[in-house]
């Protein structure tokens, strides 16, 4: 993607809707959003204040949508937004924000800053001002089908391992199945135990499910980098496959932004509603258990806590299901003090973990998670997002912390009644 500032500026302007206007009109620069952002709290660098990271969008709103702003630019009293501003802000937009949405929860005038961040990235990526790592990932997602370059071939190899160790067969392209599941590349490559777990769970609960060979990728680089065209293309693949197979539900796996992409943004990206429902794996497991289809027994008795993946819990609305499941399979589940929709980000979401330039900062802000864990004194953490898991593992290692991380589906599978 070469640089095209004017196209980026035009795109950014397009993104300014009634919500954005209301938000910028109401902001009184109180700075409370900074107190909720782990990039600020762990570095004390005021440039990481969420509303400051949105400065390019605010300036464009001012110069295009307000009386004073238009007048000031006309009279030469204020500068119009320039390419240098995009270049200067790229680091703030992509390295120091995971779009975790904690800021949106605390703004006294109710601004949804994460909503604005997502939109601001549309302008930046159109202009070509995005980190190389993300650009490359998006390219791979569009051309190969996976940001990590995972092909059907790779998937099939992993599935073969899973079939061998579970003794079950994984249905591929099964028409008319109730559920079509997606996987994130991270799970396929780094945490195939997730695939094993759900294979065993679906078998035990007698769930009719399948994978699509043309659209198995859950992650959506378009959402991360901020390209609605790329995001729509990726969603369309899934929708097309689901329609072809005639499934009733599409399952979003243990991946954060994948849920946001397919469940909340998807229909708006492709411009129509789905003929199927989208369900998160945790919602499904909880539902199956409540219906009595999923029988679980025994409990894990070591003290453990839950790290809430931002895009699933706070931005996705799947708050209770993980807790319901943990209360069944764990006897000593303790919540972090800030938990549920106010838990702290792992620091690697929103494309930050794919951005090499941001590594030092990402490692620094893990201090917040460390503090949360030190307060509890547990040695086991459960989560439900493969990216969080990787980022957390790196953080724990960097800080020499003894802590196990388990995926929630994995934990549930360990307690399947025989």
């Amino acid at each position, binding site marked *: 993607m*070469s640089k*095209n500032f*004017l196209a980026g500026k035009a795109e950014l302007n397009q993104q300014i809707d009634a919500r954005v206007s209301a938000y910028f009109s109401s902001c009184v620069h109180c700075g409370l959003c900074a107190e909720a952002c782990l990039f600020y709290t762990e570095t*004390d*660098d005021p*440039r990481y204040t969420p509303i400051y990271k949105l400065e390019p969008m605010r300036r464009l709103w001012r110069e295009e949508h307000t009386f004073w702003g238009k007048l000031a630019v006309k009279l030469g009293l204020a500068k119009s937004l320039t*390419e240098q501003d995009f270049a*200067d802000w790229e*680091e*703030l937009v992509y390295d120091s924000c995971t779009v975790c949405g904690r800021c949106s929860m605390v703004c006294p005038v109710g601004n949804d800053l994460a909503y604005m961040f997502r939109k601001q990235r549309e302008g930046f990526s159109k202009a070509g001002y995005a980190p190389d790592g993300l650009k490359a990932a998006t390219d791979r997602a569009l051309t190969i089908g996976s940001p990590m370059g995972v092909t059907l071939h790779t998937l099939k190899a992993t599935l073969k391992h899973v079939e061998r160790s579970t003794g079950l067969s994984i249905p591929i392209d099964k028409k008319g199945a109730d559920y079509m599941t997606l996987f994130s590349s991270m799970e396929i490559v780094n945490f195939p135990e997730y695939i094993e777990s759900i294979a065993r769970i679906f078998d035990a609960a007698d769930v009719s499910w399948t994978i699509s060979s043309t659209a198995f990728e859950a992650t959506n680089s378009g959402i991360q980098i901020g390209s609605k065209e790329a995001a729509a293309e990726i969603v369309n693949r899934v929708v097309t496959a689901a329609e072809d197979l005639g499934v009733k539900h599409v399952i979003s796996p243990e991946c954060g932004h994948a849920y946001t992409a397919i469940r909340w943004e998807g229909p708006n990206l492709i411009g129509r509603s789905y003929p199927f429902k989208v369900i998160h794996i945790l919602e499904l497991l909880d539902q199956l258990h409540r219906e009595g289809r999923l029988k679980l027994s025994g409990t894990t008795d070591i003290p453990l806590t839950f790290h809430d993946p931002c895009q699933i819990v706070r931005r996705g609305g799947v708050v209770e299901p993980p807790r319901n499941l943990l209360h069944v399979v764990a006897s000593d589940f303790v919540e972090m003090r800030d938990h549920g929709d106010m838990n702290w980000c792992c620091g690697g979401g929103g494309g930050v973990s794919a951005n090499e330039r941001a590594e030092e900062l990402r490692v620094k802000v893990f201090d917040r998670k460390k503090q949360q864990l030190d307060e509890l004194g547990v040695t086991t953490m459960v989560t439900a997002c493969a990216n969080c898991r990787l980022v957390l593992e790196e953080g724990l290692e960097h800080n020499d912390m003894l802590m196990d991380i388990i995926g929630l589906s994995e934990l549930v599978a360990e307690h399947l009644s025989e």
Partner: protein
Amino acid sequence: MRSNSLSYSWIAALPLMGLLSVLILVLAFLLLPASAIADEQKTATPIQIPNPAADLWREVRQRDVVGVGTTQAAGVDAGTLINPYGSNWTQFRMQMLIPYGGYLLGGMLLLLLVFYLVRGRIRMEEAPSGKKLFRYTVYERTIHWFQASLFLFLAVTGLIMLFGRSLILPVTGPEVFSVLASASKEGHNLFGPVFLLALLLMFIQFVRRNIYERGDLTWLLRGGGIIGKTHLPSNFFNMGEKTLFWMLILIGGAIVASGLLLVFPVFGQGRVIMELSHVAHGIGALVMITAVLGHIYIGSIGMEGAVENMTTGYCDLTWAKEHHSNWAERCEQHGEVLSDEQVARSQGSHRYQADDVDAETVRETN
């Protein structure tokens, strides 16, 4: 080579001067009735014409004994026909408080001017280190300036009320002065209780660091380093600062208490209590303003490296070692020394500067 041996003496002297002036004024007030009566006796004429109601009026006037009559009118002091202390109080205000208060303030300003001309700005002995210590949090600085702005506003409006008739009215004329005086009274009365809030916040935040410690008396007796050339060690706050703190809390507290009695005359205060409150309020305020003049001087132009403490929150390491050595050492031991760059970053002045976008590229793509 500039000598720092006189550096601290005047800070210690200011509160002492304040205390001394209080004593003088209280003595003056006590001596007043005696002098007033003596004056009248000197000017008495020899021809006596007996007044049939002399006895009655002597009792009413309460010259010999203080008495209060009874009346059907309800209300505090309703039984007092004539308040004998009224004229004492007026005389005190016009002939002692105003002139001597004026001399006190004027004298202080003169003293500061002379001190600045003779001693100059107190500079650091060594050059600034380029390293900083974090001294005051945002909250602490906020409440300090909150207190300071309230104090300044109350001081100015109060001084207008006290000295305005003598100093301002002749200059501006009655029309302008009456507006000014009315505005000052309303402003002073409304903001007075807010000062109580400021005092409470200051007290809670700083009292722990202002408790007397070993070495403080030595510091005071040595005038903060005037004798000999040794720097006297001191902790977070030196004895001069501690003295000002306690003056603020105690005298300031008395000012607030008397002010509340004056502004809310609905709790059964009689005239005498109101007069005494006014006296305490006036004397206390003049003493505090005098002390604060010194505080403002030394905190701004009087000492190098002082004002940045309360504006940025950071102080230079060298400055800290020279003026608050115990505290500075402790910070060093705890590894709390910061570089200029670290300070700049936390103040948001470290800007990520992308490479200048190439003008050529801009023209090509746009």
